[in-house]
């Protein structure tokens, strides 16, 4: 009797569970998993507009890697890699320094404003990249306030054209992105530093380590999980970079494709703005999507493994 009651309850539970999971699974499956699977599958077919025609093997991929697409592809890939490296240094590196400074100042007496600085630094991160991009586009425009300030300080003369110059445009976009997200490393590193036992720092101090030495030799190895999280997040974000480029430089990655990224190139292929006539090339777009999917998943898995191995257990 007892046993039968239990097994009937098990069955009710199974039925309830299916009912409860179904709405979320349906929405997630229909609008995320299904289109993603279809996109990967579709990259092996020829397309006419939005209609899938015949199986084409790897011919889309072959077209992706030869001229004229190869020039766009390598350009965009290089910009994404440069973007990632730039963010690692200027955002995550400088962010670590800020987090360390705040951590040192929140030791001992009270909290001394660390929370205030954290909130202030994180503020731009809650803004849309579109707003951030539009704001900086106005500030950096010829005749804008940055030009006026630099001229006034005698650091620069005449019209400021950093966004119109293919030598500097990408660097400016990376800087704007770092301005946007600086608060993220600051928050993640300070949270990581707080988890490290105070005794470890005390012991290092007794051994005569200065604060710089303490950061490099004591804190850094123990921050590996935080560094791993940030590196992976930054990798995913930079290889999905689209909004800032679109708003500041247009979907072509002006000037002359110098700020083009893989996703802006993908967007042009898929929704039409590539070349003079603006015809879409769905087969090529899906092949690029599949390549990007592979870069992202393999890259993410390798990074997670790399940082997992270097996590110090205490």
């Amino acid at each position, binding site marked *: 009797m007892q046993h039968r009651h239990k097994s009937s309850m098990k069955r009710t539970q199974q039925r309830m569970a299916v009912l*409860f999971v179904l*709405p979320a*699974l349906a929405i997630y499956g*229909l609008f*995320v998993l299904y*289109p993603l699977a279809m996109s990967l599958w579709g990259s092996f077919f020829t397309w006419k507009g939005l209609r899938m025609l015949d199986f084409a093997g790897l011919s889309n991929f072959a077209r992706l890697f030869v001229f004229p697409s190869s020039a766009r592809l390598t350009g965009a890939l290089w910009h994404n890699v440069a973007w990632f490296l730039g963010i690692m240094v200027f955002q995550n590196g400088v962010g670590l320094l800020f987090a360390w400074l705040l951590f040192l100042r929140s030791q001992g007496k009270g909290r001394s404003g660390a929370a205030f600085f954290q909130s202030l630094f994180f503020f*731009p991160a809650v803004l849309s990249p*579109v707003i951030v991009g539009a704001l900086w586009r106005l500030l950096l425009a010829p005749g804008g*306030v940055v030009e006026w300030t630099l001229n006034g300080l005698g650091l620069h003369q005449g019209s400021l054209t950093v966004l119109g110059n293919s030598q500097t445009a990408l660097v400016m976009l990376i800087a704007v992105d770092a301005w946007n997200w600086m*608060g993220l490393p600051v928050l993640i590193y300070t949270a990581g530093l707080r988890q490290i036992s105070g005794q470890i720092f005390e012991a290092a101090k007794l051994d005569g380590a200065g604060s710089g030495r303490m950061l490099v030799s004591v804190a850094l190895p123990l921050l590996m999980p935080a560094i791993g999280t940030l590196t992976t997040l930054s990798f995913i974000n930079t290889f999905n970079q689209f909004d800032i480029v679109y708003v500041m430089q247009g979907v072509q990655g002006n000037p002359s494709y110098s700020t083009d990224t893989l996703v802006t190139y993908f967007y042009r292929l898929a929704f039409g703005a590539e070349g003079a006539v603006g015809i879409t090339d769905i087969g090529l777009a899906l092949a690029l999507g599949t390549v990007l999917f592979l870069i992202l998943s393999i890259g993410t898995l390798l990074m997670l493994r790399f940082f997992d191995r270097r996590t110090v257990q205490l």
Partner: protein
Amino acid sequence: MSARAIHRRLARIPGWTMLALWSAAVLLPLYILVVSCFKTTAEIYENRLGLPRSWSFDNFTNAWTRADLGQNFVNSLIVTGGAVVLTIVVSALAAYPLSRYKLGWNGIMLGLFLSGIMLPIRLASVELFTLMRNLDLLDSLTGLILVYSAIRIPFAVFIFANFMRVLPSELDEAARMDGAGETRILFQIILPMVKPAVSIVAIFTAIAVWNDFFFPLIFIFDDRYKTVPLAISVFVGQFRTDWGLVFASLAISMAPILIMYCLLARQIREGVGAGGGMK
């Protein structure tokens, strides 16, 4: 004060300077944004950093009505509100049995949801576009709500499952003895116990949806359904010469997030610090 204490204070000056410099780098652009909202374009050129001559709201009214930002603002509110509610309800429903029943398939299902946190959904936008067209969900706020919920469900299920898993099992067992149904147990007993999870999911879903630009760009063509970021991206080109109006529209579009941030700064700091809850 001993010489040593003075030395220690002096040693901290470079650090404070760096922190102050970055604070200025964050605050100055925002200050310029705010004061420029009240200036005419001519005044912006003449008087860059000073306070406006008069606190005129012309730019705001122009942005709201002439550029029709008011409509975009309402659309963004509807989409954000809808996506937050839908995400919370369906994710809580799914997370409850997956974290608290012994089903035999909890692990696989959770893994399936979890994998979605990292999936680059933008790459699926061609097939998503075809799907939305076939479902007649282009130029539709409902369509946006569904897509955003689908994207945010993995993170929400993950957070809810983590919080629900650690609640004592006596909670729902006692309620079940009293004859409460599973839906009631979830919404009246379990969900109130995991309020921090609900607020994390609500905050980060709201920020992500309010700020998103990519999907409206692809799915919305009719001006009546454009959301704020999409409208802003058009303004920047369209009203290139009317800087006051563009600054005012930027200010309007960040206002709701700014208010929320001031109220919830601590929760947001802790939520992000706990695991980079936000992309």
